[in-house]
């Protein structure tokens, strides 16, 4: 797949930023602290492509998805839907809901327990202009699309009668009922049993390949991102730290955080991952000045503590938000090896 065949992005985020203000208690005059949940994130979602956003809790990935779905208002930045900019401070319209849908993480909680499955599918259909007469057929068709066959067995069930995997399929079917162009999936498999996770991933991949949906797949599991995504983005503390097309990011991570993330995944096929060597206890401090990862970074340099790095190009369609990849002579150090390495500092030039 080359860039040339891609049509313009279905949905683009430009410099999307969301700050939350929290009060620091315990003082007479409560001091306010700004938490930069998402900071200057830009990304494009194309039809027929899965973009994965990988990050741990607190990386801002869920807030990002909610901003894209416009149920969280960005502090600044803009959204572009099919080429036309959306005023982000305006009210979310039904039109937008018809184009961009979000699938939530917990299938057990995201379907109303008191209503039959039928209700969850017919409501989006009715809201988005289906006739009363055709909703039944359309609802069943939606269930078939997510491989809940035969649909008659499921429409009149209550949510508690279905398993987690089936509920997540219902949740996806509900999103599909409004015929969206963009499907945002916020950790759709993390609450599911291991054996049914691949089924959901394959379903998403299929929707993308066969129905040309633009899909944003949000996850903390970098292996699943590698499995499904055409483009992978790693977020840390609200920022994009590394992004690449294909599997380059996982196969040859260049950002120290991505390297840490990948080396932490239990991977029995990699003998080095079982090293008994004790890892240093990570701090969770996020720097306010300079690179946000600097306090945890084994390769941190002076420049990292003072200046936030720009995105350096490290390969074809592959950027890294890290000073190690600066080409300026004053920052010239031997780049953190693109191979997976955990211990030891890079040798200084």
């Amino acid at each position, binding site marked *: 797949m080359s860039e040339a065949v891609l049509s313009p992005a279905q949905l683009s985020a430009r410099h999307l930023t969301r700050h939350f203000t929290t009060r620091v208690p315990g003082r007479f005059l409560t001091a306010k602290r700004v938490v930069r949940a998402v900071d200057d994130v830009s990304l494009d979602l194309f039809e027929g492509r899965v973009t994965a956003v990988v990050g741990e809790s607190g990386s801002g990935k869920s807030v990002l998805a909610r901003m894209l*779905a416009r*149920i969280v208002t960005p502090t600044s930045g803009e959204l572009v839907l099919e080429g036309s900019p959306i005023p982000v401070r305006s009210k979310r319209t*039904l039109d937008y*809901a*018809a184009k961009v*849908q*979000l699938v*939530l*993480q*917990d299938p057990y*909680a*995201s*379907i*109303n*327990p*008191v*209503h039959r499955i039928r209700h969850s599918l017919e*409501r*989006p259909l009715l*809201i*988005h202009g289906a006739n009363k007469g055709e909703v039944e057929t359309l609802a069943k068709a939606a269930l078939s699309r997510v491989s809940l066959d035969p649909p008659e067995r499921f429409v009149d069930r*209550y949510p*508690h009668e279905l398993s987690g995997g089936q509920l997540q399929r219902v*949740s996806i079917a*509900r*999103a599909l*009922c*409004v015929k969206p162009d963009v499907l945002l999936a916020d950790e759709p498999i993390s609450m599911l049993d291991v054996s049914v996770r691949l089924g959901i991933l394959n379903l998403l991949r299929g929707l993308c390949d066969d129905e040309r949906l633009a899909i944003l797949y949000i996850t903390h599991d970098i292996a699943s991102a590698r499995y499904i995504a055409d483009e992978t983005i790693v977020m840390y503390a609200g920022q994009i730290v590394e992004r690449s097309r294909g599997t380059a990011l996982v196969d040859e991570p260049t950002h120290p955080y991505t390297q840490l993330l990948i080396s932490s995944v239990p991977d029995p096929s990699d003998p080095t991952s079982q090293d008994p060597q004790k890892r240093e206890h990570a701090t969770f401090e996020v720097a306010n000045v300079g690179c946000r990862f600097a306090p945890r970074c084994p390769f941190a340099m002076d420049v990292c503590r003072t200046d936030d790095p720009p995105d350096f190009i490290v390969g074809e369609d592959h950027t890294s938000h890290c000073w190690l990849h600066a080409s300026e002579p004053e920052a010239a150090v031997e780049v953190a090896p693109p191979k997976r390495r955990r211990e030891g500092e890079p040798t200084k030039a």
Partner: protein
Amino acid sequence: MKVLRLPKSPKVLLGLGILGFFILMTIIGPWLAPYNPSATNFAANLTPSAHHWLGTTSLGQDIYSQLLVGARATMVVALLAGLVATILSVTIGVAAGYLGGLSDDGLSLLSNVFLAIPGLPLLIVIDSYLPVNSRSNTFVIGLIISLTGWAWGARVLRAQTMSLRNRDFVEAARIIGEKRHRIMFSEIAPNLLPVLASSFLFTVLYAIGAYVTLAYIGLTSTAVWNWGTMLYWAQANNAPLSNEWYWFVPPGICIALVGTGLALVNFGIDEFINPRLRAGGLTSRQRRKLGLPRRVRLGLTPVLRPAKAPRVSTAPAKLVSQ
């Protein structure tokens, strides 16, 4: 939550039985009454007899007929007030809890004001402003009582709604573009059903108390028979002093029984909401039969010892005998 399966607990069945009895009495009581409750054509102060099961008043009215006829007004006012108050509390509570912000502040202020004003004095004040002829109207009285009885339920429902508001299924409804009122009343409210039912029962209980009190202190029309007016007349004629227990005890017992019935049904709702109260899925008879301890103790999982001999020791024995 598919079918509200009928609870098996004897408490709840008893409660339902009592309530059923009084609702039946509400419907057919006036026809069952042997005499006109207001007619004064009997001898005064008769003690209970075959003709007058509960004797007669000092005006010569049949007390048994008064009790049967009085059930209707009492129950109608109580159920009506319960219903209207519950509707008010759902609307205000769910709206306050879901909308948040200024709407919440305003609606919460309103319900707090109603909570803070003592209900009965307010009731008396409102009631004394009513034209005398509407005091005989049970519907007007029911509405007035509901006005003073909704605030507590609204607060409980507001708190419950606030905990549901951030649940994923509500967010999912918002994502598909559902309208606000539909989210509140079609998505959230059905989840509040157990709380709602419980709040309804308590409001009914409150309404009976309030209505009987109003009647007892003579603020409702004496032309309408209810259990409160019976007590009013009994008090006015010094029945307790002259030992005419059959005049004031029966309506008192009826009021107490309705209250007990409501409370017993509420136990069932509690068990429905809180599965832990279901005594671990085992009835006490089952537990006894299995030789398990009666009470469920934390940190001591019961061990089932089947009546038949343990399999480990019998197996070799069988082999030998073969």
